[in-house]
């Protein structure tokens, strides 16, 4: 089989072009969903591949609990440098498992702690906290507690009535569409294979854009949403001296505002086939599909070899 078996580990790279295209040409709702599914699939393939490499690579080590058939020379021939690769995969797999547990534990710890902080407040969806730091976020529900929109008074003070409606509608959209699941899934995918990190960032961005569009529909004015996002970002910026380092391209907030000042993206938008964008989209889609498929095939082939070698 040769190097073919390593494909699932590196093929996530082929998803990069579709990340850009989906961000540019799909409605954020579609982009978030598509990229989450693609990211999840590629992460599963990549992890499965690691497991199989580890199994094949370590089957011949004395004292392992695996079936004897798995250490047959034919099985080992499927993976180049199987001994070395097997040992490396053990480490990689352990690293992935640890990273996953940390991410999941962290996710639920933040949710639990945030909910506990709100104990004693009236059980309303909107929680306004008297705080001089401007912030606003959606806190997903946790063990029987409803999801909540948490806003600081400092944030509300900087917005007018319409902009406040935008803010709340935006956070409610996060809760209603359960965006935290998208964020957690793509986060786990990026931990399974660091090559999937661009997908994660794109899903985070698309979820924000999605909530922006929902807020625009709710309030009936894209311009008001753009203004609310820009004002909120500027007051938050003033409050936090440490901003992330400047990137070559504009950060997510200016892109969101620019997108809101542009016309609404059509709900079902795939660029027309005739255009350059359309062509690029199809090529990228085909590439991603092919890579996902070959990742699956590689994983399936290794599995099949192992099953064939398993003494019944």
């Amino acid at each position: 089989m040769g190097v073919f078996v390593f494909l699932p580990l590196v093929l996530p790279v082929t998803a990069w072009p579709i990340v850009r295209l989906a961000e540019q040409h799909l409605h954020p709702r579609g982009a978030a969903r598509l990229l989450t599914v693609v990211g999840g699939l590629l992460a599963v393939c990549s992890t499965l591949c690691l497991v199989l490499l580890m199994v094949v690579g370590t089957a011949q080590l004395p004292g392992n609990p695996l079936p004897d058939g798995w250490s047959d020379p034919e099985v080992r021939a499927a993976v180049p440098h199987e001994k070395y690769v097997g040992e490396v995969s053990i480490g990689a797999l352990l690293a992935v498992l640890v990273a996953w547990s940390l991410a999941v534990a962290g996710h639920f710890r933040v949710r639990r702690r945030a909910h506990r902080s709100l104990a004693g407040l009236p059980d309303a969806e909107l929680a306004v906290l008297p705080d001089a730091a401007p912030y606003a976020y959606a806190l997903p529900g946790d063990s029987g507690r409803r999801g909540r929109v948490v806003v600081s008074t400092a944030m509300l003070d900087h917005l007018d009535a319409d902009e406040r409606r935008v803010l709340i509608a935006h956070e409610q959209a996060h809760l209603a569409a359960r965006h935290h699941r998208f964020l957690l899934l793509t986060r786990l995918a990026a931990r399974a294979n660091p090559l999937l990190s661009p997908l994660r960032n794109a899903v985070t961005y698309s979820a924000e854009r999605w909530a922006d569009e929902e807020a625009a529909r709710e309030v009936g004015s894209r311009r008001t949403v753009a203004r609310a996002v820009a004002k909120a970002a500027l007051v938050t910026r003033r409050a936090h001296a440490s901003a992330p380092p400047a990137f070559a391209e504009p950060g997510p907030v200016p892109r969101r505002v620019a997108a809101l000042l542009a016309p609404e993206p059509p709900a079902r938008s795939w660029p027309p086939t005739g255009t350059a964008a359309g062509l690029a989209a199809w090529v990228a889609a085909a590439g991603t599909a092919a890579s996902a498929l070959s990742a699956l095939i590689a994983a399936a082939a290794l599995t099949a070899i192992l099953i064939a070698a398993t003494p019944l």
Partner: protein
Amino acid sequence: MGRRKDETGGAAVTQGRKHGRQSPSPPHGHRRAQGELEALILSALREAPAPVTAGWVQEHLGMEFAYTTVMTILTRLHTKGVVSRERDGRAFAWRATSDEAGLAALRMRRVLDSESDRGAVLARFVTGLSSDDELLLRGLLRETAEGSAEGPEE
């Protein structure tokens, strides 16, 4: 000393005195989360007509918590700056200086400040800006202002 002995176990709500100190920890099994307990005790203080003792709070909450528990939570609330205390004879008289929302805000701040994972869980309205972003954003904001001044939106 004699006075304290007399009052030990006294069920009457007596302001300005400490009592029930020796009462054993109630045998209830359920553990409340710290945050709930803080909120509960703060709201008890807010219901009090005047500064009250820890013993009063304990009584007010139906003797559900040990005196030491109440004291611990009161001290913690004091550290957070949401209650004040003044000497009243041998005991402290406690008073709420903030409401439940203020307490929640303090606690939430701590969560936000301490958790590096927060961004991955809490979908925040806006994220940080680089200085280039800020310039760009100010330009866009001017654009929205001009747009809305020129005519009706959309």
